[in-house]
């Protein structure tokens, strides 16, 4: 009954065949539209209430999303075949999903990922860092230390090394395998240097293909079984052999601690915010079924802005996560893909709105951050990651209607310029390289925003 990895690999080779363009432009969009109609979900996006508070709406999205996955399956880019499951199999897969994962170490860096419900009082885990951001090799270790030093950062999220010992890392070259180990060693050294040797890391990031994962995990001094192996699925509901290599590797070498995500894109193949919210429900299930994720992320991204803190994305994110977390016991993650840069108040508003939405919608893990949408090299710092950790840790038990009011107050402060947001200042300009502390300018902005949010009701006093 349980569908093992070997069976998934069989189906990836032998499932129903379909050209990718048919999947992208016809089959999936039409199926999504049909499910939205069947469940009366068309035009349910409510711009006046960016955080959903309607349980019945979330439940309808779950039912429709579950059916969508049963009827679509996942798409294997390498064989142009659909990996399909029966309804009974999907129900068993959800029943078998873990509700708790304990990792880290024997001391205060022990981390517990627990299943959460919307408005749950359980504390989610913050997995933050310069996700996907290109950080110069010369400052890489210092950047990691400037983030890992804050204890509101539970786990460190990897950033991208563009070079290894001065050589540019090109996709599919042996340097990708090399950097898997190299990056892992830098991480272990950095977390040890700030007194947190057991701190788990979500990686490998410098090689997006399978090579970094295969190279870094299991290598002495690099990534360990206690770390989080990253598996990112391309939109919509797709997989491929580079991801399935990682799955096959992780299940044996990593003992099944893969954590990943998939962006359903507003404006893309699944249509508007309603289609994206629905597809994201299916994506969360798909990643558990096909990628065997311990922590699964069915997420939203806006194709126009390439971020997810805009009004439409926040609404879709709240609906899909409430759907996932009310109706299954999967451990789910939210991911902050902000567009403003460091040393701007707007980046903190973005983090507060979507991070808070993740917590009240039942996510077990709040992850990010991605200043400038990861576009500009070195645009990261420890401070926005500390702030994201604080939001994750102070808001358990917070109510969705109260979060909705906060989102309504904050969105107008940044949403108008999301297509061309201020990129702010890079690590070279926002952090003292000797002390690893943020500059006074950046710290003052942080204090001012926290004061403003406290007045709006964000309970920083719970920290």
């Amino acid at each position, binding site marked *: 009954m349980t569908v093992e990895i070997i069976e998934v690999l069989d189906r990836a080779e032998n499932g129903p065949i379909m050209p990718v363009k048919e999947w*992208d432009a*016809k089959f999936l969009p039409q199926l999504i539209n049909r499910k939205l109609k069947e469940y009366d979900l068309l035009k349910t996006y409510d711009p006046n209430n960016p955080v959903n508070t309607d349980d019945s709406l979330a439940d309808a999205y779950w039912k429709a999303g579950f059916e969508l996955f049963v009827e679509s399956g996942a798409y294997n880019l390498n064989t142009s075949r659909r990996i399909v499951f029966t309804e009974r199999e999907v129900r068993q897969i959800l029943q078998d999903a873990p509700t708790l994962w304990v990792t880290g170490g024997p001391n205060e860096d022990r981390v517990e990922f627990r299943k959460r419900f919307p408005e749950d009082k359980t504390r989610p885990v913050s997995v933050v860092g310069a996700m996907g951001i290109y950080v110069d090799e010369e400052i890489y270790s210092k950047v990691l230390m400037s983030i890992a030093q804050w204890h509101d950062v539970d786990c460190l999220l990897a950033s991208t090394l563009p070079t290894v010992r001065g050589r*540019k890392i090109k*996709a599919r070259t042996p340097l990708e395998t090399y950097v898997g180990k190299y990056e892992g060693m830098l991480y272990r050294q950095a977390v040890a240097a700030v007194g947190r040797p057991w701190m788990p890391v979500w990686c490998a990031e410098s090689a997006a293909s399978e090579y970094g994962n295969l190279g870094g995990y299991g290598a002495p001094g690099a990534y360990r079984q206690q770390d989080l192996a990253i598996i990112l699925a391309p*939109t919509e509901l797709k997989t491929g052999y580079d991801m399935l290599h990682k799955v096959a590797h992780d299940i044996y070498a990593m003992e099944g601690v893969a954590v990943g995500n998939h962006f359903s894109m507003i404006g*893309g193949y699944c249509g508007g915010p309603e289609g994206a919210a629905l597809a994201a429900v299916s994506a969360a299930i798909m990643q558990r079924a096909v990628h065997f994720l311990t922590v699964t992320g069915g997420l939203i991204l806006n194709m*126009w802005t390439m971020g997810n803190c805009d009004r439409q994305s926040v609404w879709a994110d709240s609906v899909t996560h409430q759907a996932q977390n009310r109706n299954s016991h999967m451990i789910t993650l939210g991911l902050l893909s902000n567009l403003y840069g460091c040393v701007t108040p707007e980046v903190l508003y973005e983090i507060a709105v979507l991070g808070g939405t993740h917590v009240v919608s039942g996510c077990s893990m709040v992850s990010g951050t991605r200043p400038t949408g990861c*576009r*500009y090299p070195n645009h990261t710092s420890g401070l926005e990651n500390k702030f994201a950790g604080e939001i994750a840790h102070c808001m358990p038990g917070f109510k969705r209607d109260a979060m909705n009011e906060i989102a309504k107050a904050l969105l107008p402060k940044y949403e108008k310029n999301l297509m061309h947001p201020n990129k702010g200042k890079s690590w070279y300009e926002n952090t003292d390289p000797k002390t690893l502390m943020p500059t006074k300018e950046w710290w003052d902005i942080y204090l001012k925003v926290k004061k403003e949010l406290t007045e709006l009701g964000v309970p920083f006093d719970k920290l």
Partner: protein
Amino acid sequence: MQSGDEEASAKLAKRAIDNGIDPVEAIDHGLAKGMKIVGDKFSKQEMFLPEVMLAADAMKAAIAVLRPHMKGDITKKGKVVIGTMCGDIHDIGKNLVATMLEVNGYEVIDLGNDVPVQRFIEEAQRSNVDIIALSSLITASMFYMEDVVKNLEGLKLRDKYRVIIGGGPTTPGYAEEIGVDGWGRHAEEGVQVADKLMAAKKGQKLAKPVIIGEVQ
């Protein structure tokens, strides 16, 4: 065409020919106008990417019927070969730009994703394109963009084509560093970059790349 029905578009194109309508007029006053409406609706989020992709296919189906009856060739703004760089399987951004270029009057040859460097150059030569458009969401794949420029230079072909880049990790600074001709932050801005380059004299070396959409 707006409903993305290839069969119906081809049938209507045939009916236009049967009724003695000049195929150029059918394109200019029928298909081009229809695609303009599609493009406008897409920009206003009244239509989404799959519908626009299907509308573009419907337009191509109609043109295939009209083309044999034309005296000259179809006037297009330019010809573009586009693809996602080697090692990158993300294609939605590239599909968006390709679709926007088509909607705005370009002929687009889409090589798909995970495209090797030399494949861009071979197709550019084979199809005699004006622009080579390179997309990447991954830093390790982005680095192949500079190989396209270097290989064009090595083959003494650099002056024949404009090279434009876009996608997640690309920046104006990187565009300038590797010596391409243009960069756009968003898909619409990518089209504006292509328009500016087509307006410039072919073969003219630019002092700096055309950059649209850079932020403070």
